[in-house]
């Protein structure tokens, strides 16, 4: 939109917003009180949702966009950016979140998908979107649809970082691989990746995604956060890991510290001391196929 020489909703403005979050931690919160704890701990943004992924898993049922009243309560409580989740393909939930003026929309596999074949056409919105990806092709398809930020999916709500590691290695390894391909190999690779050719070529030439790459799904400890940063993440989403732990305030502060100082093992060790119980984790082998959230998204 252009008004008085001011253009809003440009891709530079949308992807630039994510640039400002780099090196930071984005925390899932379910009410204003948790949002304030997150802000006080040094979170760069909060994700407002009614149930954290661990509770969605435990309680089951269809998981939807949060109540606008709850989102607005959080917006009033903090000065940092507030993000919220829409179901995959549910562009009306996204329209509602845009009307509420959330700062970022997560088109998220943690909620129950509303469309089994299509994602939201994100380019037409003024508000930016972040989407999950398990590999490079999926990341580039989402960017092709207009996503201005990518996060690895992981398995949300498990407290188990193994899937986030798998996805981050797949994305970063995929980027590295493109860098060694000849020009004439790129079209075939675009076909294999099922990704737009122009984006494949951009990544091959620049050695990174054209947007910020965060990590998410199963991060429960300061060392988990530092691990994901060393694997190439620009920043960290922590879902159930903080408010499902024994001492959320200390854990939130500790995960921020470990993310800031991810290359410094002494600082990570210091941050990890005396945090009490981490959230109870789950083995991937114990999850049935239907319980795996990362497979959602096309």
């Amino acid at each position, binding site marked *: 939109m252009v008004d008085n*020489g*001011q*253009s*809003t*909703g*440009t891709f*530079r*403005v949308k992807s*630039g*917003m994510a*640039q*400002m*979050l*780099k*090196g*930071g931690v984005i925390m899932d919160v379910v009410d204003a009180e948790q949002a304030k704890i997150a*802000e006080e701990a*040094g*979170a*760069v*943004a909060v994700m407002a949702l009614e149930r954290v992924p661990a509770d969605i898993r435990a309680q089951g049922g269809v998981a939807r966009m949060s109540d606008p009243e709850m989102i607005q309560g959080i917006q009033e409580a903090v*000065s*940092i*950016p507030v993000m919220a989740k829409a179901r995959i393909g549910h562009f009306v939930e996204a329209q509602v979140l*845009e009307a509420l*003026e*959330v*700062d*970022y929309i997560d088109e998220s596999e943690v909620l129950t998908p509303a469309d089994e074949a299509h994602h939201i056409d994100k380019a037409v919105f*003024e*508000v*930016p979107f972040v989407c999950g990806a398990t590999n490079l092709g999926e990341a580039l398809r989402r960017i092709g649809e207009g996503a201005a930020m990518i996060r690895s999916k992981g398995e949300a709500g498990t407290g188990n970082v193994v899937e986030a590691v798998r996805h981050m290695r797949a994305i970063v390894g995929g980027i590295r691989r493109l860098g060694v391909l000849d020009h004439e190999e790129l079209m075939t690779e675009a076909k294999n990746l099922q990704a737009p050719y122009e984006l494949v070529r951009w990544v091959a030439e620049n050695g990174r995604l054209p947007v910020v790459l965060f990590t998410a799904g199963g991060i429960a400890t300061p060392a988990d956060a530092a691990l994901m940063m060393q694997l190439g993440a620009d920043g960290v989403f922590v879902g159930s890991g903080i408010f499902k732990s024994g001492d959320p305030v200390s854990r939130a502060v500790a995960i*921020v510290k470990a993310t*800031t*100082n991810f*290359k*410094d*093992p002494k600082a990570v060790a210091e941050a990890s001391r005396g945090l009490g119980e981490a959230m109870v984790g789950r083995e991937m082998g114990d999850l049935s196929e239907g319980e795996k959230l990362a497979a959602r998204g096309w």
Partner: protein
Amino acid sequence: MAGNGERRVTARRSDREDEGPKRVGVLALQGDVREHVEILRRLGVEPVEVRDVEDLEGLAGLIVPGGESTTIGKIMVESGLLDGIRSFFYKGGPVWGTCAGMVLAASATTGQRQPLLGLMNALVDRNGFGRQVYSFEKDLEIEGFEKPFTGIFIRAPFFEDVGPGVEVIGKVGDRIVAAKGENILVTAFHPELTDDHRFHEYFLREVCGL
């Protein structure tokens, strides 16, 4: 341990200041550090990622980048960099704050209390332009620039008012979005997100004297 190795190298270099390219720091606690670092390198100065007070030694200038000002402020307090940067500045060290850096450079905010560097006599309205849906690009007339500069404003602040010693060099309507003092520059927008390096050149030339 890569971090420690890098630090030893920079410490050695500061012992021989006049050799090689000038070193300019980018506060690297959180935010869009990489973009500033890349542009500085392109302009022929040696970028230094500043994480500790010791990293400030021997710098010809310091950029405080965009990010979340509450997060950066909190980490600055814990790491001692809040006082470290103040002392760098009051000894004449040149500083440029973009967006969050402009918030942190101010002496007071209209909103809730947060740690500030207080390098500039100014009252800042943090996120004054509103939430992300109101973030925008706009061509700006900047004092001392021949052609307009495209400002990228992201949940941007503005100065409501400035005191003596602060020169306003850019406005959106009546909102102050760029200003300059003796050894300080602030911009509410993000020159590091564009391919136009005139503001980086301006900082190095007019503020750092390079």
